[in-house]
């Protein structure tokens, strides 16, 4: 493919998943802007950002997890547990919000570390491990609060983070930008992070190539845990309240955004900028439907349809091209067209 003429490369770029997704996003934006008189306002745009930062953060760190062929179902529950512990540290242990936030990030890292240890040391499948911690973390949050205790009355200086503007932007936006940039650099610009895709493509191959698979895989889960705690802090600041049921279902939004963004659920293929587009597509749809005066349930249906269209749109041309080429020489289809087999637990 590298020797293809310029026009072919241009066409390849045009039909990349990200390009299609960008067109989809533009369509969404134009449509909602046309039917909703207040959709395109700055206030509404900022609300879209505020509402999507937390699940967006989860989607960002979910990307390297899925790239390695894994999955982390526990991020939403860890968000809930972190929010509760943050509240406890602040209200009951008397820490300042900043100190409590620092400890909460540590707790998030520990939670991610638990996933990492079980997955890499005991070689258990990520799906099962994180399904377990999904229940465990939420259960702990509910046990600590007996399902009824909530944490409120945070100082305004802390609530600023979730509700006010800083440099003209929603205060949480710069944090999101920094994390997004960090994860992008990690995955796309550092050899260290590039090996995530290698691992996802073939953990055995990665091991023979001398990649410390265990440590790399462990790292993505610790990162996911830490950023879940960060999302919990922002969530608490936005709502002004920490509850045990914070972030329920966010893991699924995050996974949807990642897959919509073009990352193969089997690992090995995908990008962080794709995930960013996926986050935006979901967030705009969710908000825009209210402005189009459609019921909220429609968001679920349309997110599903969007996901299927995006997946079909990106796979169909490749499959079609492969089929057209077959009668002549019948070479194997290009690797990227076919998802690699389900990754075995890394060793």
């Amino acid at each position: 493919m590298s020797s293809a003429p310029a026009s072919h490369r241009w066409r390849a770029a045009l039909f990349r998943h990200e390009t299609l997704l960008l067109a989809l996003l533009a369509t969404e934006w134009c449509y909602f802007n046309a039917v909703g008189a207040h959709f395109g306002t700055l206030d509404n745009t900022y609300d879209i950002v505020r509402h999507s930062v937390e699940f967006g953060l989860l989607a960002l760190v979910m990307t390297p997890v899925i790239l390695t062929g894994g999955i982390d179902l526990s991020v939403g529950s860890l968000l809930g547990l972190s929010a509760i512990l943050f509240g406890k540290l602040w209200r009951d242990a008397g820490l300042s919000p900043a100190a409590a936030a620092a400890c909460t990030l540590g707790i998030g890292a520990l939670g991610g570390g638990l996933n990492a240890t079980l997955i890499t040391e005991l070689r258990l499948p990520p799906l099962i491990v994180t399904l377990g911690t999904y229940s465990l973390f939420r259960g702990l949050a509910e046990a600590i609060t007996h399902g009824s205790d909530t944490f409120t009355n945070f100082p305004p200086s802390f609530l600023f983070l979730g509700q006010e503007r800083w440099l003209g932007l929603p205060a949480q936006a710069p944090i999101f930008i920094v994390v997004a940039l960090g994860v992008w650099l990690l995955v796309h610009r550092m050899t260290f992070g590039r090996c995530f895709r290698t691992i996802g493509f073939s953990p055995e191959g990665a091991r023979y190539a001398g990649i410390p698979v265990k440590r790399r895989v462990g790292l993505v889960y610790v990162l996911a845990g830490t950023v879940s705690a960060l999302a919990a802090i922002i969530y608490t600041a936005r709502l002004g309240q920490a509850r045990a049921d914070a972030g329920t279902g966010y893991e699924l939004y995050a996974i949807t955004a990642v897959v919509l963004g073009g990352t193969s659920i089997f690992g090995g293929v995908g990008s962080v900028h794709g995930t960013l587009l996926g986050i935006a597509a979901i967030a705009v749809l969710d908000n825009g439907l209210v402005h189009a005066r459609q019921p909220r349930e429609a968001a679920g249906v349309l997110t599903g349809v969007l996901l299927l269209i995006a997946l079909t749109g990106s796979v169909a041309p490749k499959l079609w091209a492969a089929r057209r080429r077959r009668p002549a020489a019948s070479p194997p289809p290009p690797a990227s067209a076919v998802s690699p087999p389900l990754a075995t637990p890394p060793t």
Partner: protein
Amino acid sequence: MKKIALLLLFAGLALAGCSKSPDTSAPGAKKLTVALLPKSKGNAYFISCRIGAEKAAADLGVDLIFDGPTDTDPAKQNEIVDNWTNLGVDVIAAACENKEGISTALRKAQAKGIKVITYDADAQADARSFFVNQATPDGIGNALMDEAARLCDKSGEYAIITATLTAANQNEWKKYIDERNASFPDMKLVAFRPCDDDKDKAQAEATALLSTYPNLKLIMSICSPGVPGAAEAVKQAGKAGKVKVMGLGLPNENKRYVHEGVTDSVILWNTQDLGNLTVQAAVALVKGTLKPGDTSFTAGKLGTFAIKGDNILLGKPFIFNKGNIDQFDF
């Protein structure tokens, strides 16, 4: 070729979206818009409120948006209120799932000139103008005692099943039941038992009560699982009709026993009236006919309601019995 077709499709969609003039589909230029937020959208209780709300909206000629969370994430209510704020509705009426959390969003709406009232469950006082209060503790206590006395012809032994002995709500109601009991000197409370908000435990307690107090004339439950629990106990003991069952509860979980003649009355408030009054109060607030400091509010055909402080009182609880329980589905 297929790729180009796909791209054209997207481009076409985008153009179709962009070329539409924003004004043509802007909803009802001058019509008031009331946004009604339930705690959760699928809850039968709120669906019942919605029926009343839609009736009020039709009577008053206003647009009603009824939308709420479909999952349990506590941030969802805030997001909906934020969206309505940007949408520029005239008034938001909210049943608050989490008081402190949603107050932030409601205050933001108020800052943008949107009127806010709450119903069913209140927000913080500075985040709304009025709270449509569906039931006061004295209203509930009095209604329970009066109905019990009516069923017993004002004399006889009765027992109360409560949630837990420390439950704040229930103890508040019990206080007013005791006060009201003074007007019925021949009504004698013989037992006050907890059921831990559990139907099976309530059934066991009721069975024990039936054998301990052979002259018992009535069992009153002041927590909702207790009513069907006590009814099942009375039914199994073959004492239906001899020992009356009544209490605070939801129509649906008691319908069967009411029709079988085991349970006589289920007391709650009229949820349809709650929705109706909420919408009427919301519209009146926007039109300026309802102002802070008012002591009463006249809601069309629904009647006149007292206002205590900033609480609009729905008034006396509603009694569901054989004659009317089938009109309610929650």
